[in-house]
């Protein structure tokens, strides 16, 4: 438990604050609409469904405001750079932006359900009150001010209508249905299964959020939910006058004028205007950046269908482990896909390695393989920062890359090589442990050269102990293992040709972590992962397990890349 606190205090605080605000808003407005004198007569018609609907509406406004903020990549990037205090912890939390976005989305779905159910009841009871001709308080209230003045209480005028008809002929009803359908489509297309397998469906459908926000702002304009006006309350006190509704407006003790009602003004726009403007600015910025010319200086096809693109763009500057969004108009005009940069900041170009993993990537690789005389145009947005920037701030770093997830670390290792060559004092890292887990040997090829040259470099400069790397082949079979056993005595590994031998199967993390903890008992160790969720869980567990609460002793901080 203590270790969890050390690693997670900041997101826990943010979530607690957000949850607290939601609860506060809901309870406060629920009590307001359930107790306030202003809504006495509205409650006569609607019961407590009024309070449920209004309280959930407030929470919906609040969450709709929040949901746009985590996806403003450029804003977040700016915040990361501007945060000079608590850099490490703050930056790490900005990784969780997508998790927060999803959490807020689920909350919106929940409050939407509550809001809709409450309003279904409201419409039904408004209708019942309008149709009742029994002289009850509800029917008297419903008949008030049906003369064209704007003082009515019951929005339903006709005696022979249905709630469905009312819903579709009023602004809130119609916009409500439209934005709910948009919300449901957005949610079903963002299910993990759909998102991972058919990214394009998710990406295009998600743009329905424009309809959602437009509808949300218009939703409250008609002011169908009403309360008694302040002037009316002075002349007509509901507690006293409700007992005798037939004598309103007549001379009698106590004197009660007919009550008059006014609408609650639409306020959704006040909540969502600023985030919408921020997001619009974000998209404009992305578009502007994408229009800048990108020159493709080199294209390399690696085995296992991995394409390397080396590019140059004026004014582009990056740090290790950042990622960019790439668009190729000849493949698809509207799609942007993220890729981690594999080049070091010290190099003159920036590069990405793209693996065939879906429609868009396969088409892109085909396009480049055709080797047309004019290389297809590429647009780039970014770079955007992620956790790997912090690698050099940790005294000891454990880098774990699974398969293609090694790409950010390619950038890190290259940067180390350059920093070494120039004896850069910014390098605080004293020791790096690098683990690469991979299924098949083909994918090793492009990374081989890098590791081979690093091996050589380290030997030449006498710092052979700086980088400790282990390679794990998780998809081995009997023939590979046989070959390895046969070539056991060779100096270099049979699979990769490197001095470090390839291990087979998955690493035993407990052993690795305890070895690192023993070797560096007083350091802060940063653990960086780019890989699958299951691996993240086991690494996180080990981080908790081997971190000590004592701030002077070893502490493991876990950082995960997420795409």
């Amino acid at each position, binding site marked *: 438990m203590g270790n969890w606190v050390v690693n997670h205090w900041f997101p826990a605080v943010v979530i607690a604050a957000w949850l607290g605000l939601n609860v506060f808003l809901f309870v406060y407005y629920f009590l307001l609409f359930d107790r306030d004198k202003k809504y006495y007569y509205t409650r006569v018609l609607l019961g407590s469904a009024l309070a449920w609907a209004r309280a959930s509406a407030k929470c919906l406004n609040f969450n709709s405001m929040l949901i746009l903020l985590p996806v403003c990549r450029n804003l977040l990037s700016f915040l990361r750079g501007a945060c000079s205090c608590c850099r490490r912890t703050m930056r790490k939390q900005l990784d969780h932006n997508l998790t927060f976005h999803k959490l807020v989305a689920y909350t919106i779905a929940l409050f939407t*359900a509550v809001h*809709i*159910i409450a309003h*279904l*009841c409201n*419409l*039904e009871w408004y*209708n*019942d009150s309008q149709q009742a001709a029994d002289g009850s308080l509800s029917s008297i209230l419903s008949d008030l001010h049906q003369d064209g003045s704007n003082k009515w209480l019951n929005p339903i005028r006709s005696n022979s209508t*249905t*709630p*469905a008809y009312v*819903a579709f002929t009023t602004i809130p009803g119609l916009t409500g*249905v439209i934005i*709910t*359908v948009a919300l*449901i*489509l957005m*949610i*079903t*297309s963002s*299910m993990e*299964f*759909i998102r991972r*397998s*058919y990214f*394009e*469906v998710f990406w295009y459908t998600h743009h329905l959020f424009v309809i959602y926000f437009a509808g949300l702002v218009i939703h409250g304009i008609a002011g169908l939910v009403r309360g008694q006006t302040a002037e009316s309350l002075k002349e007509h006190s509901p507690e006293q006058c409700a007992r005798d509704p037939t004598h309103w407006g007549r001379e009698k003790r106590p004197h009660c004028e007919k009550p008059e009602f006014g609408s609650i003004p639409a306020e959704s726009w006040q909540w969502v205007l600023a985030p919408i403007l921020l997001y619009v600015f974000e998209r404009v910025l992305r578009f502007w950046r994408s229009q800048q010319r990108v020159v493709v200086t080199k294209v390399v096809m690696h085995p296992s269908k991995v394409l390397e693109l080396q590019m140059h763009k004026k004014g582009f500057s990056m740090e290790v482990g950042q990622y960019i969004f790439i668009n190729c108009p000849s493949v698809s005009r509207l799609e942007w896909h993220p890729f981690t940069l594999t080049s070091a900041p010290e190099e003159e170009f920036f590069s990405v390695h793209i693996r065939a993993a879906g*429609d868009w990537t396969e*088409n892109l690789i085909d396009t480049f393989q055709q080797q047309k005389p004019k290389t297809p145009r590429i647009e780039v947005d970014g770079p955007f920062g992620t956790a790997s920037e912090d690698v050099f701030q940790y005294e000891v770093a454990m880098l774990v890359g699974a398969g293609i997830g090694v790409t950010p670390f390619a950038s890190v290792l290259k940067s180390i090589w350059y920093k070494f060559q120039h004896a850069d004092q910014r390098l605080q890292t004293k020791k790096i442990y690098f683990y690469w887990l991979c299924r098949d040997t083909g994918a090793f090829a492009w990374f081989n050269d890098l590791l081979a040259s690093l091996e050589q470099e380290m030997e030449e400069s006498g710092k052979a102990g700086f980088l400790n790397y282990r390679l794990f082949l998780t998809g081995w079979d009997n023939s590979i293992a046989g070959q390895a056993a046969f070539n056991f005595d060779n100096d270099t590994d049979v699979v990769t040709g490197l001095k470090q031998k390839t291990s087979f199967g998955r690493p035993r993390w407990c052993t690795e972590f305890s070895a690192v903890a023993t070797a560096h008992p007083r350091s802060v160790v940063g653990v960086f992962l780019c890989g699958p969720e299951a691996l993240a869980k086991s690494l996180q567990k080990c981080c908790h397990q081997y971190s000590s609460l004592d701030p002077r002793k070893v502490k493991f901080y876990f950082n995960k890349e997420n795409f």
Partner: protein
Amino acid sequence: MGRIEWAMWANEQALASGLILVAGGIVAVAAQFKGWPFAAYSIAAGVFVCLLEYPRGKRKKGSTMERCGQKYLTAVVKIFGPVTRNYYVRAILHAALAVPAGFLLSTILGTACLAIASAIYLLAAIRGEEWNPIEQKKPPERPPVGGGTIKQPPSMPPPRPPVETRKKQPLEEAAQENPIPVTSEAE
């Protein structure tokens, strides 16, 4: 969008619609809105749609993630053969199921969502997709030991008596009781 399997998204949408139909129906029945028999129908239709859509079909390319516990329903849905395999049938079925729920406000959202699911299924059917059940993997058969070259166990496993006594003993007099019947090749 080349290799999209629309049926996968239609499946998610239909499952969500089923749940919405059930929820809307329960509200209207519980609060006894006017026209609540439509809501009762909507609950039944929603449950049926959920049961039909819960087992995810097999993707043509790549591995498909099963939903938790779907194998029981897969067995049931498989029985109906072409009726559940064909997506035209599903599209029409969902469109038909959606209509009665459209008469009540509480369930009209379910109607809209199910209608959209039906449209996506129609698109899937036009592109020739089909529902195939995800089969349970049989446990792999253990390959025969030694690649199938061992046909008979050794006839005189150790401990063996000394050489003189080993020569050409008739099998009945051998000190060993062989658990598996053995024929002697020497004779």
